[in-house]
Each structure stands twice: as C-alpha cells, then as structure tokens.
C-alpha cells in the first residue's frame, strides 16, 4: 500500500513539479498513472522510490516513511525504471544474483523464481550473456524478473511496456494482474491509454504537478458525462487543466 500525503516537489527556487499530491494506492489493485510529458509522473514515482527527495509532505510504503525510514520502505518496493540500461557489463544472471544479495533472497527460492520468470519471458537461454548484448526489450524483461525475484508488496513500473514484444507485453500484464490479485500493490505509469483502460482497477491523471482525477474509468466517464473513449477523456481533462 502506498500513501502519498500532501506531497510537493520543488525544483530550483519555485518550480513545482508535483504540487500538494494526495493519493492512496491500495493493496490488491493495479493503479495506472497517466499524464502528458512533464506532468510529474516520473517525479512522483522517483519520490515514492526514494530517488528524489520530497520537498514537502510524506510518502508511506506499507506504513513506512520513505524519508524517515527509507530502508524498511525500500524493502517493500520493487521498481522497474523506464531506462533499462543497468549494469551493462554484468551478465543477466550476475545482475539477478546481485539483486538477490541486496534484498536477501534465499538462494534456493531465488533460483526457483528466476527459473519461473526467465521461462515466462523467454530469457532462460540468455541469462549467461552480458546485459550489453541484450536488446531494449530483453533488458526490460530482465529488470522485471529482478523485481519479481524479491517479491515486493509494492511493484512500481515506469513505462513498462516500452520495447516489449506483444507476447512479453501480454505476459507482463498477466503477471501484474496475478501479482495484484495476491494482495500486492501495482503502480505503473504509461502513455498507452488502451493498456490503462484494460488493466487498471483505478487510474490517476496528473498534469502540471496536480492530480486532476483519481478513480475508475467508469467514474471518469460519469464525471464528464460522456461515452467518449479514454483517449478523448484524457485529452479533454488535460487540456482543461
């Protein structure tokens, strides 16, 4: 569960990238974070994961403050960044070993999970190769396996579908659904509105650092009293902001 309370992020003197954001993402749900470029999605995600310092407010991950108790909070988090070019000189399995060590995953359990997810994402034959020889999609899949390896109760993915082939994208969506059904929280940002429409239990639309809407697609339609597509609703919402 992720609780964002009155959170603000100011860059420089007075540029508010995120402005007094309040949001609760519950356990067992998939939450889609939508917004145009520069809306504040990635900044919010970076604050949740501890990459960026919070200027004001508080973020709790399973009740632990990311600012005051970062290690406990981070133990509950798994993050897949939008740029998967990580530790390129390591082999795939070396990277996963590293993740297992950092999160203290039992080696037998780790092996079992690597087997399962590498097979699911068709990466089992590539794990001994260096990450730098992987394609963008393969790197993305490796990071997803890395996150699933330590089974965090909160899964955060920044643009996770970018670069994935249709089969892998389908598998990832399936994993995300199963993961949420097991009682975990899944938060992801996306530009692909169809994915959000089909996958998310709730969505949040952010623009210019302010949260414009939180709820289900149906609630959004009811609010705007229209039968438009999500794309039209999204454009209407963000252009009026």
């Amino acid at each position, binding site marked *: 569960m992720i609780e964002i309370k009155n959170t603000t992020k100011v860059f420089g003197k007075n540029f508010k990238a995120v402005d007094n954001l309040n949001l609760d993402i519950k356990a067992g749900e998939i939450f889609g974070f939508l917004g145009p470029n520069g809306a504040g999605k990635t900044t919010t995600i970076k604050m949740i*994961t501890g990459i960026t310092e919070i200027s004001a407010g508080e973020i709790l991950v399973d009740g632990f403050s990311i600012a005051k108790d970062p290690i406990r909070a981070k133990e509950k988090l798994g993050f897949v960044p939008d740029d998967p070019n990580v530790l390129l000189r390591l082999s795939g399995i070396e990277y996963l070993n590293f993740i297992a060590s950092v999160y203290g995953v039992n080696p037998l359990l780790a092996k079992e999970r690597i087997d399962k997810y590498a097979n699911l994402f068709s990466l*089992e034959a590539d794990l001994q190769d260096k990450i730098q020889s992987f394609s963008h999609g393969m790197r993305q899949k490796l990071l997803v396996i890395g996150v699933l390896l330590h089974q965090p109760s909160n899964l955060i993915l920044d643009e996770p579908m970018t670069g994935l082939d249709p089969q892998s994208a389908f598998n990832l969506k399936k994993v995300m659904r199963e993961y949420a059904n097991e009682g975990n929280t899944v938060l992801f940002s996306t530009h692909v509105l169809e994915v959000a429409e089909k996958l998310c239990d709730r969505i949040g639309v952010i623009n210019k650092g302010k949260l414009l809407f939180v709820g289900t697609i149906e609630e959004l339609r009811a609010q705007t009293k229209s039968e438009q597509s999500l794309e039209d609703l999204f454009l209407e919402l963000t252009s009026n902001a």
Partner: protein
Amino acid sequence: MHKVLELSKIVLKNSSNILVSSKKKGRRQNKKAGRIFAIIGFTVLYVYLAGIMGFSVYSITHSLAEVGETNLLSPILGLIVVITSLFFGVFMMFSTFFTSSDNHLWLPLPLKVEEIFTARFISTFFYIIVIQFVFVLPSFIGFNLAAGPGILTYFGQFFIFIAIPIIVISLSFIVILMLSRIINIRKYFTIFQVVSAILMFTTAIGISLISSFGGPIIIENADDFGPIVEAIRGAGNGLSWAFFITFFTDGAFINLGYKSLLLPFLLLLFAGLTFYVAYLLAGKYYHASLFSIDIKKKKRTKERSTFKVIKHNPVWALFSNEVKTILRSPTFVFNLLLPPLLVPLITIGSALPAILTDTEMAPNVTVLIPSLFDPSLGFMFVAIVGASSFISMMNLISATTFTREGSNAQLLKIYPLATRQIIYGKMLLGIFVNTLIIVPLIIVLAIIAGAQFYLVLMYIVGFSLVNLLMNYSSIILDARSPLLNWTNEIEAAKNNKNILIAMGVNFLITGFVFVFLVPAILLALPTWLIFIMFVIVFSIIIGLFELYITKVGPRLFKKIQ
C-alpha cells in the same frame, strides 16, 4: 566556418566537462562560489603540476648550462611535445572520431561530413593544447629561463606547440580511417586499447629510465657531470634516431639562426598538409565510419543455460559489481587500474638505474637503508607513509564511483541499503588496489632493510589510514557531485573535473602526512610516538567522515536523480 565552430564547441562540451561546467539548478550565489572555488582549485593544481614540470626542466637545463651542453636537451624537449600529443591525442582522437556515441545527433543535421570532421578535429586539438599547457609550456619556460636560446627559437617553439598536435591527430586519423576501410574498427577497440596501453607503459617507463640518468639536479663539480651528460647525449641520440621529427624541432631549442624559425615552420607546413590530406580523406571515407557499426553478437544457443544463485553480503555484492564492471571495460582498466600501477613502476624505474650505475653509492645503500629503519627515527615512519600516499594519489577509482554509473546511478537509491553500506561497497575496490600496490612494496623494502616486524606493521597501519582517508574523501566528493551525463566511458574515467579535484585533495592529504615531519625532526621523536600521534589524528578525521555520512544519510546522494 561559423557552423563548424559552433559544432566544435558542442562536441567539446559534450565530450569533456573539465573545461566547461554544465548548467545546474541551484542558487546563483552557490554557483558563483562554486566557480570561484573551482578556479582557485584548478589554479593551485596547475601551479603544482606545471611547477614540478617547469622546475625539473629548469634545474636540468641549469646544470647542463654549467658545462655548456644545453643543446643536449633539444631532442628530449621536442619529444615531450610529441609524447604528450601521442599520449593524450591518439586516444582522444579515436574516441572522438570513431567510438563516440553521439553520431546519431550529427547525422540527421544538414552538415557535410567534412564539417563534422573539422569540428571534431578542433575539439580534439583544443583538448591537446590544454594538456600541453600543463606539461609542455612549463618545460619550455623552464628551458628558456635557464638556457636563454634567443627570440627566434621562441617562435620556433610556438610553431611546434601548434604543429605537433595537428600532425598527431591527422596522421592517427588517417591510419585509423584507412584501417576502418578494411576491418570493423569498433570490434577491435579493445585490441587498440591494449596496444595503446602497452605503448604508454613502455614509453613512460622508458622516459623514467632516461630521466633517471639525469641523476642529482645540483652538481658541485662540473667534471662529475661527465657521465650524466654522456647518458643524456646517448638517450637523446637514441630518441632522435627513433623519432626523426626532432630534426625539425631542434631549431626551437638551439639557436641555429634563421633555421630556428625555418625548421619548425616547415613542420607547421607539414602539419597543414597532413590536416588537408586528412580532410580530403574524411570527405571521401569518413561518412561510413559515422554510421554505428553493430558488433556481431555471439551466437546464442537456444538451450536453457544453467546457473547458480549465490547470496552475498550486500556490501560484498556491490564490491563484486565494481570489480566486474571495471575489469570488463578496457577503458576503465586502462584509465583507472593501470595508472596507480604505473606510478610505482616509474618511481622504481627512476631510482634503480641511479643506484645501480653509481658504483660509489651502491655499497653505501646496503649500509644506509638498514640504518634508517631504526625505531628511534620517527621521521622514517612519516617518510614511508608519505611516499606511499604520494604513490596512491593516482588511484582515482573511488573518485569516479558514481560518475561511472552514469544515468543509472539513481538505481542505487532504490535498494534497501544504508548510505554507509553503499559507500563501503563502492569504496572497497579503491582501497584494495592501493593496498595491493603499496603493502608489498613496504614489505619488500622492510625485508631488504631487515626492519623489525612491529615497524613494518606500523608503516602498514599508517598507510592504511591514509588510504582510507583518500578513498573516503574521493567517494564523498563524487557522491555529492557526480557527472552522470557522459557519452563515452573515457569521459567518466578521465575527462571530468571530479578527477582533478580528487587529485588535488589527495595531494593535500599527502602534504598533511608530511606535516608530521616537523615534530618528528624538530623533537627527534621515536617511531612509536609519531605512530600514535598519526593514528589519533587520522582516526579522528576518518571518524568525522563517518559521522558526516551518518548525519547526511541518503541526502549524500541528493544530486543523483
């Protein structure tokens, strides 16, 4: 031309951040203070490096002037320009022209290939000129002050200062361009780096051996200088034979009348010619090199690979990643691992011939060294720890820790690890490399001298504290202000200002070690007392760093995002 100059400015900014500071968010006041601090820091560092270079050449020239043999230095000075250009230029040329990852930025622009070539040429040339200002210019000034060869030679020196970098860039570009017509040059980048490193090693040790024949800088009797003069003459002749270019550079250091101007000017003309040839060839063939050439990937079997999962302590896991990342990158190996190895080799290379060729000194050495390892001589502790610190100054592994991670450094912040764990894990390699180089040296020296075991232990503990402090300060500097946006690994490992700052700090730490000479000599303190003082002072400083890390916590990585 305006387009080319603008482009060269961008290429230079993109490929090096030593000279150009990027715009950062922050208060204007802080930026101004930072800039003033940077200017002061660079000035101190420049005065230090240039001072060493200039004073060494001045001293040698002054000694040779006493026996009327300053001309002997001519080939060596000419070669300083050549070697500096080769050392820094060839590698820079290769990375700028052939392995730079910014081709995708220039290819879509309406630019002629010749314009891209010229812009890259100017940026590489400018880079070498800056390096020449550190190593070459002070040597020339030192020589001119002691020898006073005349106004025409000064013009000659200016010509070769400009001409040699142009020749080096042009010729190396032509060679690599032609090679790239036959083979996939990117594929053989590693081989190229290995060959470059071997050449660097050989040249550096060669120069150190040659320079060691210079012996004592101040001589009391000109007759005693005879063998040294002969050695320099021999070395100079050998080098002239090896590098015919010194025939043209001689005029810049020896007053040959009009030839002092003509010979270097001919070199400048030759430089213009090589540039023109390179320019023509670039127009014809360089375009193909701008396209990224995919390195053929290893054919993968579709069989399921077998693997083991081994759980380590997180600090060890971070250390292990550092080792793998550095060892698997030739750029990091040659820029970060080899220089700390090179310094002791050069130091030993410089000292050995002087001892071995001095028939009077050799027997004395065997008597002198053991007598210095006396427990009552506290200054020996300072001297050994100070010398070890000096050798360790070139270890910049910790100084580039977070910079090397590039834009992915932010991911270090998502792991459930304490700031201290990240610092320890990342710092271990720098500490380990220094230990690996210095501790055996201390032990060997102590065995030769027959020093008592506890003295050796004190030296090692003293050095270890300095080692820890150097790595602590370097890694904290890099954590506080990493340079994460680089286009090639050379920038991360070599061409950034954090390295210069870390070297400056290491220099200050080394200087601080030598401060202990004052009580050691003035009060004639024994080793154990100096050791205790040293351990207390350094432990307090290291403790302060620990406190700082604990207090600052994750905010230490504030700029990593």
